[in-house]
């Protein structure tokens, strides 16, 4: 535009006259001032704040603390030995000191339910820990290295994925029928359980690997391995934690199922699955013998699944349905 047309001689239309707001209405701030009033937050602090207010988390948290307490100190709740069985009491009704009555073998149902907690919880926790470690490592290596390593690990993953967990576990456990350790169940569950964790870890690592802060770190002098452990894995942990907590419940169920089928723990180890299996023969006459271990199992699994849901909401707010 040439100089002679400065400040257009075009008449200003009504409502478009020059307007300048009084300064006191919107006082100028420093450019890009740091808001120091807000509390400092990180992803974990945010997640914690979110969790604290979630009723799902509070309820499941209290239940889980109680379950852990029972598993650690069963003797606080009952003085009865779960393996002390007197056939005189076979299918006896509840009486003082034995609130849940007796099972077919004459064992105290309350004591067996309380002592069964330890087995279920250990299997669930140990399997989850093992699965998370194995799955994350395999997934992270596959995602980070790419190329043929990724191809091999991913196919291995596909093969394991094709085997139904329960079927595979039954076949493998048949070979260790004599072992009484809970480790055989934990190992078998981990053997077939790492697959989905590895897939999720691989995806998360692939995503985190392409984020710019890795390039930035490399340019600062960091090595690829350092990037993997310092930046990539920490940034991929959230989805892994979510799947870990939600699948904990399913491992407890699997242990119960395997014990129920008779390939899990031997009858000498107190477990809910074994008790449910034993109780089914008298289901018609004495349903309560089956009822108590089943409820304990259901409440435990539900608590962990609820906890998993709450953690998922907190770590990944986008997945919330509300």
């Amino acid at each position, binding site marked *: *535009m*040439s*100089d002679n*047309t*400065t*400040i*257009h001689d*075009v*008449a*200003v*239309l*009504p*409502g*478009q*006259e*020059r*307007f*300048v*707001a009084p*300064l006191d*209405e*919107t006082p*100028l*701030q420093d*450019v*890009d001032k*740091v*808001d*120091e009033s*807000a509390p*400092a*937050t*990180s*992803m974990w602090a945010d997640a914690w704040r979110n969790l604290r207010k979630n009723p799902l988390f509070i309820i499941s948290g209290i239940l889980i603390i109680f379950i852990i307490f029972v598993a650690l100190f069963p003797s606080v709740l009952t003085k009865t030995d779960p393996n002390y069985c007197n056939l005189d009491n076979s299918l006896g009704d509840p009486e003082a000191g034995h609130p849940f009555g007796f099972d077919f073998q004459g064992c105290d149902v309350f004591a067996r339910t309380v002592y069964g907690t330890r087995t279920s919880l250990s299997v669930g926790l140990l399997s989850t820990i093992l699965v998370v470690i194995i799955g994350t490592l395999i997934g992270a290596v596959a995602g980070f290295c790419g190329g043929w390593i990724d191809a091999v690990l991913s196919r291995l993953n596909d093969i394991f994925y094709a085997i139904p967990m329960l079927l595979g576990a039954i076949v493998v456990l048949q070979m260790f029928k004599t072992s009484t350790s809970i480790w055989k169940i934990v190992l078998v569950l981990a053997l077939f359980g790492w697959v989905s964790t590895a897939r999720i870890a691989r995806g998360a690592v692939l995503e985190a690997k392409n*984020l*710019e*802060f890795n*390039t*930035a*770190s*490399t*340019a*600062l*002098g*960091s090595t690829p391995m*350092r990037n993997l452990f310092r*930046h990539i894995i*920490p*940034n991929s942990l959230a989805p892994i934690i979510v799947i870990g907590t939600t699948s904990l419940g399913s491992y407890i169920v699997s242990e119960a199922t395997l014990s129920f089928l008779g390939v899990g723990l031997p009858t000498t180890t107190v477990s809910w699955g074994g008790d449910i299996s034993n109780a089914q023969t008298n289901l018609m006459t004495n349903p309560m013998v089956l009822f108590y271990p089943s409820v304990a199992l259901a409440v435990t699994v539900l608590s962990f699944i609820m906890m998993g849901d709450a953690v998922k909401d907190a770590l990944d707010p986008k997945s919330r349905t509300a």
Partner: protein
Amino acid sequence: MTENVNENTEAKIVAMQREQGPLLEVKDLQVDFTTDDKRAVHAVRDASFSVYPGQWVAIVGESGSGKSTSAMAVLGLLPGTGHIVGGSIKLEGQEIAGFKPKEFDKLRGSKMGLVPQDPMSNLNPVYRIGTQVKEALKANGMDVSHEKRSALAKALAGDEVAVKGNDDETFIGSAQLPALLEDAKSALTAIGVSGEKFDNVMQYFKDEWVPGSETRWRVADDLIKAGVSDDKAWEIAKKHVTGSTMEDRIAGLLSEAGLPDAATRARQYPHEFSGGMRQRALIAIGLACRPDLLIADEPTSALDVTVQKKILDHLHMLTDSLGTAVLFITHDLGLAAERAQHIVVMYKGQVVESGPSLEVLQHPQHPYTKRLVAAAPSLASQRIISAKERGEDADALLEHQVKGEATLEKSEHIITVDHLTKEFKLPRKKEMFKAVDDVSFSVKRGTTLAIVGESGSGKSTVANMVLKLLEPTSGTVTYEGKDISSFKGKELLDFRRHVQPVFQNPYGSLDPMYSIYRSIEEPLRIHKIGDKKSRAKRVRELLDMVEMPESVMTRYPNELSGGQRQRIAIARAMALDPDVIICDEAVSALDVLVQDQVLRLLNDLQAEKGLSYLFITHDLAVVRQIADEVVVMQHGRLVEHATTDEVFDHPKMQYTRDLLDAIPGGKLQLGLD
């Protein structure tokens, strides 16, 4: 603009605008958002502005100023928890602020159109472009065989030709086009047009008569202008221009928006389009139903400047001919002043200043507007002067001069790029793609060299090779006379220590899991410098250097703004006392004021520490503020290399000239007082 020719028309437009009154009148608008904990955030407070028919009005402001929110309130598209709590919005005198979503549905498309900000996410990837245009036409029950012209456009067109009834707005159909051209040819021959003139006229007809876009009266008008008698011209036009099909109209709309070969393009999917082409398709959709008001929300922010210029030029022409008013939302004051007659400046949800564009630009009165004008890179005419040079301290000044001279005498090249080439293998293609093709330049110690180019010009690839993040296919990069390709182990670590990057995306280059303290400390840890205590001291110094309070140390990147993160990234880069900093589009994602602040910081650091910068940018305006030398790249090749002044005053290559022309508001006269 051809002012003289259009003076009459302009006066007429103003008279009509005055008579019709404002098309859109927003008065004391208040928009609140409700936060998670039920607090109300006032996003827009008492904003008033108006748009007249056929007028371009720009709302200018930084992110969070409420400019987009105001526009979305007008469209009835406030997101989530946003709602209008006060004021009025009048469209053609009708109050629409209290409208229900259903009532807004009727207004959108036919009365108000939107060209959204992000062309990448606003087209549905599973539908063909044509289908998406069709959707807009169908949803509003548009008649695809007739043009719908605004009252304003009609009145203006009436100047040149008598539009006789609605049928004269009938479109050309593709089926009838060959016959029409045939008859036009014989009519021309009949009146004795021949030779070169004949060819030119026919070529003009072929170019202009786009099916589904050109109308009967225009065809007649063109024929009459070519010398055909009135009666004959109208006879031909009436016989052959009998309306278009849906497909014709879609192609017509797309070609109006500036897409070449529109009929073929309409059958393609969004992923086959470049960013600029997608934005053109969105413009076609926004204008498909001939709205009286088009709201363009930062329509070109994601595009290269040259593409931005082309698209806005075209949009201007199109809306002028249709008589469409445009409410143009932008963060760029230069762009706003160049495009709009009226500017509304928003800050923190309020209108702080408004008025005729040039007047606001030349005599800004509100301190915020003054600040904006001072910071706008497109309006700045020279390099930023560093704090030291500005400094009243004579010693500092002297020292700097001495140092400056010494540097000049040494004239040592700290980084030299020699015949650098990088080829990439493209998927499913045999030949290699040359991202960088035989590029040579060198960075002088203590100076700034800028590499300018559009996206895809290979400038970032060069940066990554200089940083040794990518290996060149051929050619060498030398740092302090040593070839960096041989660096390994300790030597590489040493190189990394002296050559630091600052990347484009301040959201991506800081690890979200690291506190600010850890982020800045990281390079010290990697290079095993100092103990815990001395590192903490160094972090504090660095934060002070980038003018950030110490309290941010315990914070995480997500709590800081883009500009603040970029300052943290600069602090991290400075941690090891480097010699060279490579800024890859380091200020491109920032608001003007913040951008200005970061540029000044970089400049002050350079003066203080004698740093050398390799500055990669697509924005020539920024180059003028910071660079001593400029390298212009296009399609992987170096097209021009000169000092900044030379490039700006005497650009040698056409491409450089195009880039300079595309700087928004670059030619506006400023009278800053």
